[in-house]
Every structure is written in structure tokens, then in C-alpha cells.
């Protein structure tokens, strides 16, 4: 009797595991088809660019405060920590290189991406999810207007355009923060700070690779955000769950993609 109960329990567990795995794979496939559908229906987002500009304001411009303030503080901390380490080896003049490379290669795209996912990604998911819950998406379909073209695509492209700009501003503010702490507060030589940075930061190897990263993160975060919103169950609980999933999945995607891109891009100096 006990064996039969155990077997039944095991079978039930395996069934639920299989069901969970197949539903996750099915959802991933739906997300991929959704991505292709967005690309195919992006005409409106570019023909009527005003729609995309409006979303750039909501996703990008309204994220400026958190991006700029965070960038400044991250740069200031880098200045302090970097100086503390570099001065042990008598190379505190290299502070400019350390701050700039850390920000342009890694921290700019990654931290700006994480902040963008929390600030703009969650807002996009909540907005689309609530539009669905209040039948606004259904009303649009009933009026023979494709909601993917009218609602989703402009938000998607707004995110893709905003993300690299925000990452660049984050890095610029971070370098300024490093300068404030390193040069103005601690007293590192200003000429060495800027000139070493200028001679060591490569446009193609460092800056362009950082830009590529931020574009990839922009695509990933905004795709996840619009998909979660569009796929959210039309209830308060459903929208709340979708918003949480956007932040968690986007953050993990950024970190995983960062590792993959770093492995592909940076060759430990061998390429130079």
C-alpha cells in the first residue's frame, strides 16, 4: 500500500515536472514568434515616428535622473576604490584609465541595463498588461488596429534606441564622478588623469564594444518587457506577476549576456 502511494506520488511529481518543462518551452517559442512578429510589424513605429518619440520620452527621458545620479555615484566609488589600490603600486596616475575602462566596457552598459530594466522595463510591462486587463488592447483589435504595430513596436524600438544613449550618459557621468573624487578631492594629477585615459581607451575595442553590449541589453530588456506585458493574465495579480518577472528575467538576461559578449569581444589584449 505504501509502495503504491509512493509510486503514485512519484508519477504525479514527474507529470508536473514534465508539464512545467513543456509549458516553459512553449512559452519561449511564443516569445520568439512574438519577437519576429514585432520586427515584421515595425513599419508603423518608423513611418509614424512620433509614436516612438513619445515612448522614448517615457522610457528614456524619464529614466535620466536615476541613470545620471547612479552613474555619478558609481564613478565616485570607482575613484576612491581605484585610487586606494593603484597608489599601493605607485601608479595612481592610471586612475583615469581604470575608471574609464571599467565604465565603458562593463559598468556603463550593465548597471544602466539593470536600472533601465527596473525603471522602464517594469513600467512598459505594467502599462501593456493594464491595457490588456482593461480591454484597451481588445478594443484596438476590434477597431481593426493591430496592437503589436500600434502599441508594442513603438515601445520596443523606443527601448532599443534609449538604452545605448542611457548607457553612454551613465559612463560619462561615472567618469565625471571619478574625476571629482580622484582629481578634485584626492589630488591625482589632472593632466595624467585625462591624457592616460585618452591614450588607453580605444574607440573600436572599448567604446564600440560597450555600445554593442548596450544595444543587445536594450533589445533583451525591451523584448522581455513587452512580451511579459502582452502575455500577462488580465488580472491585478497577473499584471503584478508579469512586472516582477520582467525585472528578474531582464536582470538575469543582462548578466548572462554580458558574460557571453565579454568572452566574445575582449581577447585579453592579444588583439591589440
Amino acid at each position, binding site marked *: 500500500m505504501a509502495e503504491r502511494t509512493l509510486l503514485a506520488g512519484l508519477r504525479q511529481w514527474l507529470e508536473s515536472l514534465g508539464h512545467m518543462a513543456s509549458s516553459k518551452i512553449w512559452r519561449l517559442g511564443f516569445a520568439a514568434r512574438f519577437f519576429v512578429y514585432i520586427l515584421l510589424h515595425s513599419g508603423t513605429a518608423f513611418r509614424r515616428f512620433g509614436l516612438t518619440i513619445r515612448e522614448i520620452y517615457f522610457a528614456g527621458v524619464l529614466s535620466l535622473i536615476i541613470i545620471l545620479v547612479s552613474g555619478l555615484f558609481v564613478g565616485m566609488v570607482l575613484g576612491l576604490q581605484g585610487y586606494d589600490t593603484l597608489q599601493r603600486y605607485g601608479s595612481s596616475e592610471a586612475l583615469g584609465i581604470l575608471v574609464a575602462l571599467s565604465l565603458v566596457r562593463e559598468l556603463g552598459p550593465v548597471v544602466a541595463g539593470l536600472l533601465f530594466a527596473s525603471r522602464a522595463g517594469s513600467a512598459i510591462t505594467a502599462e501593456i498588461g493594464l491595457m490588456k486587463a*482593461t*480591454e*484597451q488592447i*481588445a*478594443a484596438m*483589435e*476590434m*477597431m*481593426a*488596429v*493591430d496592437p503589436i504595430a*500600434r502599441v508594442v513596436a513603438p515601445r520596443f524600438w523606443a527601448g532599443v534606441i534609449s538604452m545605448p544613449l542611457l548607457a553612454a550618459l551613465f559612463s560619462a557621468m561615472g567618469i565625471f564622478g571619478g574625476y571629482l573624487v580622484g582629481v578634485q578631492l584626492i589630488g591625482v594629477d589632472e593632466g595624467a588623469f585625462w591624457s592616460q585615459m585618452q591614450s588607453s581607451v580605444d574607440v573600436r575595442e572599448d567604446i564600440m564594444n560597450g555600445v554593442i553590449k548596450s544595444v543587445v541589453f536594450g533589445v533583451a530588456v525591451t523584448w522581455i518587457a513587452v512580451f511579459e506585458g502582452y502575455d500577462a493574465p488580465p488580472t491585478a495579480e497577473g499584471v503584478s506577476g508579469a512586472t516582477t518577472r520582467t525585472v528578474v528575467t531582464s536582470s538575469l538576461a543582462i548578466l548572462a549576456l554580458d558574460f557571453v559578449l565579454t568572452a566574445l569581444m575582449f581577447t585579453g589584449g592579444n588583439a591589440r
Partner: protein
Amino acid sequence: MASAPIVEIENVSFGYDAGRPVLHGVSLRIEPGSVVGIMGQSGCGKTTLLRIIAGWLKAGAGRTRVLGEAVEGLDSKGIFALRRKMGMLFQFGALFTDMTVFDNVAFQMREHTDLPADLVSDLVMLKLEAVGLRGAAQLMPSALSGGMARRVALARSIALDPRLMLYDEPFTGLDPISLGVIARLIRTLNDSLGQTSIVVSHDVEECFGIVDYVYFVSAGRIVAQGKPQEMRRSGEAFVKQFVRGEPDGPIPFHYPAPGYEADLDGAGALSSLPAAPAIHG
């Protein structure tokens, strides 16, 4: 010669999944210029029927012709083309909350036509005047009462003068004055704009007051049909229970349960519920 029906449904069956049939062999015919009610209790399948007419859901079996087109054979472009000849009023209006009343009503004109801005403005004002809300053109939906929001949604749904209007529970959650206003507007707009209207509702008095013909749906089947006065006199058990609002009848008051005695003895359904947590005092 009789004119072709605007909507013709023959033996339509539908289920969201195999184990959950919603409609069974439904047939109905809606003549041009009429206001037709589809009535039944919540969850009986009447909104599903409306969604099949709108091409939202594809029937599992049967034939659906709307405005002369077989809905089953249409692709997404064909469905969108068909919907441009239809309007739909949603249960709670479904206004775009980031747009003013004016922009909500202008939405379809801007999306589907190249009309100059001043002409769009004139048309929007005409539609808003028809529902008595021209003065509210610059308000946001959040500033409107439930009845006003429903009237704006009505103005939006008739923006491109649709031939067929679908109303999904248009009277839900309205105060008596707004309810009367919406009911009168449905009838007036239908007659003055030469439309055909389908009203899905469970509000007997309001619906009977404006419709020419009514279908009663119960458990996914059409159980009765006729003119409102005929339905008031109907001897059909479900119609009698529904029209008079009786708590018990073919739709039972009690949810199916095992014998009452078994529950009182602690051996029935209640005994399978988890035990309440112990209170430690």
C-alpha cells in the same frame, strides 16, 4: 424578396478546450435594421457568441456569416477588413486612458483615414454631440463617471459609421439615469444611422425596452426566442425564471453537492476541506 440577414449563424459549436464546451449547435439570424438581444445568465456563452460574430474566436463547428462574409474562411487581414464595418461597445468602455475624450473618438479616423485634421475635429464633435458629451471633449477618461465613459466609448465605436454594432453588457454597473440614457442611445443611434445592433445583456427590463427580438441562451444553447412581449408571456421554464428573477428553477439555487445529511455527519464534502489551524491561547 426578403433582404439578406446581417448575421447568420448555423449550428455553431465552440469550446475553449476539448473538455469545456461553451456553445452547442447555436443557430440565429439577425435581420438588417433590427436591434436584437442575446440574454442569459453570466457564463452561459453569450459573450463567446458575440466574439465569434466579431471574428475573435473561430467556431469549432458550424457556419457564421457576418455582413455577407463567411467568417471561418477569413485570414487576419479579412477579419480586420470586416471589423472596419463593425463597432463594439465593451462592458466597461475600454477607453484609452492616456488619451483625451476627443482623441479617443478620433482614434479610428486617424488610424484608418487620411481626413484633414479640421474635418476629423468636426466629425468627432458630431459624434460627441450625438451622445451629449461635446462639452467633455478635452477631459481625460479618469475624469469621467461610469455612464459618461460608456457614452464616450459609444461615440468612439460609431466613429466610422459601422453597419453592425455589438454591445457587450452595455448596462453593467450604471446608475438608473445613465442606464436609461445608454438604452435610449442604442435604439436611437441604430435607427438614425441605419445600423443593425446586437445587445448582449442580462438586464431584462432595459433590454426588453429597446430590442425587436431576443434570443435566450442557457448552458450554451438557444432555449427560447421571440419578441419581448412574447417572451414575457412565455411558458418556457428558463425564460420564466430569468424574466421574473426567481432564485430557483431550471437554474438551481444550490451548487451541486452530496447529501446534506452526509455533510452534517462530517462524512461529506466539508470533511474533505483542510482542517482549520488550531488556536493556541
